[in-house]
């Protein structure tokens, strides 16, 4: 049984049918990527998983427990944590305060401290800047902070929404390096990306989303070779 099992999810924005029966699953310790064009429903899928949107149909199981009846803050406590699109760090709080806010769902002070150490070890840059105000960090540092903040909640599944968005190519490389490192540490990641090339390099499996339905699902390697994926998402002919 997979860690996260998403089955036949239908999500609506008012009358707009955004997700038309998406099913996917993520095994423990693996990176699964969801690729697709703008408006395909990638972010909608993540928001539905984290409870910010309610599906009209379908189920989302984490270790066998249905999440669709829970509210967002309860889902975070269950261990499904999202790194929001566009980073959305608390611009007026310091780096440290941002990280502490991420551990809001954790009652144990000792665990918070050890999580903080873990994040600082993963991103030494954040330790250097722990007293700096979040809004003054560079884009790459902000992405590190947003990721670190999510890690503070001890996620069993990390949902990452477009971590490479708006970053310089050099920084994109760094962000994907840290994703690899997280993977090596055993973190389970569901990664939504427009940058399909990078995403398929780090992921073990991938799903291709088109207008709210999964049109293709395979191992990352096969997807990289797939003719349709190469033309539409990797820009090769």
């Amino acid at each position, binding site marked *: 049984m997979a860690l996260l099992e998403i089955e036949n999810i239908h999500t609506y924005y008012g009358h707009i049918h955004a997700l038309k029966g998406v099913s996917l699953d993520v095994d423990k310790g693996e990176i699964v990527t969801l690729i697709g064009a703008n408006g395909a429903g990638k972010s909608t899928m993540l928001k539905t998983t*984290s409870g*910010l949107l309610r599906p009209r149909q379908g189920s989302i199981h984490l270790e066998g427990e249905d999440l669709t009846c829970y*509210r*967002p*803050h309860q889902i*975070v*406590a269950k261990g499904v*944590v*999202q790194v*929001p699109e566009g980073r*959305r*760090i*608390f*611009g*007026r*709080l310091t780096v440290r305060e941002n990280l*502490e*806010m*991420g551990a*809001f*769902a954790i009652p144990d002070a000792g665990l918070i401290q050890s999580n903080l150490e873990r994040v600082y070890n993963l991103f*030494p*840059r954040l330790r*250097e800047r722990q*007293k*700096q*105000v979040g*809004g*003054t960090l*560079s884009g*790459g*540092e902000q992405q590190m902070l947003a990721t670190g*903040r999510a890690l503070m*909640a001890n996620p069993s599944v990390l949902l990452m929404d477009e971590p490479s968005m708006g970053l*310089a190519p*050099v*920084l994109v490389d*760094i962000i994907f390096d840290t994703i690899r490192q997280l993977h090596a540490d055993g973190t389970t990641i569901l990664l939504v990306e427009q940058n399909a090339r990078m995403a398929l390099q780090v992921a073990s499996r991938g799903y291709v989303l088109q207008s709210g339905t999964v049109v293709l699902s395979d191992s990352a390697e096969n997807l990289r070779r797939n003719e349709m994926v190469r033309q539409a998402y990797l820009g090769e002919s």
Partner: protein
Amino acid sequence: MRQALKVGLIGGIVAVLLSLIGMVEAFSQRDIIARVISMGHTLLVIVALFMGYLAAKRTPGKGSLRVLANSFISGLIVGGLVSLLVIVGSLINLRKVFVNAMPVLYELLTFKQGTQIGVFLLLGAGALSGALAGLFFLSPKLLRRVLLISLGSIVSVGVLQDLLRPTFALWGPLAIINEWLFTANGLTIRGAIGLFIMITAASLFWSTKGETIQTGFRNLPTAPQRILKITGILALVFILLILPQVLGLFLSEVFTIVGLYVLLGLGLNIVVGYAGLLDLGYVAFFAIGSYTIAILTSPELGFFSLTFWEALPFVIVMGVISGVLLGTPVLKMRGDYLAIATLGFGEIIRILVLSDFLRPWLGGAQGIGKIPKASILGYEFAGPQQIYYLILAGCLLVIFISLRLRDSRLGRAWMAVREDEDVAQAMGINLVATKLLAFATGAGFSALSGAIFASKLGSVYPHSFNVMISINIVCVIIVGGMGSIPGVIVGAIALVGLPELLREFAEYRLFVYGAALVAMMLLRPEGLWPEAVHRREFHEEKENQAESESPLKLKSG
């Protein structure tokens, strides 16, 4: 040169405006220094000085002659525009449009010397003020600070003379100060000079030695430092306790009004400052608190006849319930929409208590009277001097709760919601509970304030609860500094206390209020006493060290 012209023109227009709306004339009835300078003239001089300073500051380059020339010119232009007003006024009757453009005004503006000589005097006074401001700009920092403090205090003492005089008179030995310092209208010349020298000396001492004292204090071992701190707090408490006895009836009344606004402000501070939910209908909870205590205690209605203390728990509970009731429908609203919806809620409550339909229960337009005073063991909180203690106790309690809440888990949840609602939710914060608790806590504080207000007045009327109160409280918080507890107190003193003290200029109260708000937003947008997080936003550059390093370095980091 262009800057000097621009600044001068703005200053001139301000000065003419102040004259035409009658402010100069009204203020001239009071002398700052007896028979030397009146408040009206002070007002104009301050405009000229400020513009001269601004012109000096905006002068490009460093040449002190140029700075002086610019401030001189801008002062001259201020004087020139006022002269123009005098000349035009002497030729044409402006009173058809500006009712205040009376001969008295021109006499004041020309120093009673007639139009021709007066105009020259005016030009000279303007230019002199401008040049003085330029000199002030060029003088060393220490001198500037000391001068500003001592001149400012003389003006303040002059403005507040009607309060200080009777207060000193209450105390036998202090009465001598009155004779030395004040005449029937304005300071004596010797008093002003003496005061100037004293304050200059004091501020000089503090400016030069203050830092040594402060570091000396910090270098003390913890034990004596704590003793000193505790002594300070005890002294403050002692002062707060004897204040109404020292200050007399009128000032105590002012303090009770300020105190009620502090209570209201602290409540709204939780909603707006902590949780970032802009609530413009906050007066509703004040009204609910007042009316609950009225219904429960007033024999006039005859439903219940509880005492103040018996009714108080119900008041708080009613406040909290109504906070939740308002909060529930607006949970999903943000920013402007929330503000408008809550504004509507405030009006609904006012209209409800005013309605004929509810008259048998709420008294309609006539309100509810005969609300008994609160009393403990036979000590009745009757007049302002007694109610002061009730309000003081309420404020201290609410400050304590606010401080504890700010540092609590809930306080952090509020902060996260204020900074970014969606992300707060993604951090595992229960948005619904967090927001409702903010509304409920704020409403509870406001209801407490309302209960004290009702028992202070002895009656409640619908018209006491109009939208201006909500707006006043929001202003108190903005001026004081969002989310800051000392800020609320400072804001309430500045926006509620000062206008109460300067009642005779009530006509210009709202005008000054608006001008102060605009000035605040331009000069100190974070508030008078800002809270740390907000201070950061406006002074980022100071804390922002090595910002733009090459991204390649990130990799090694």
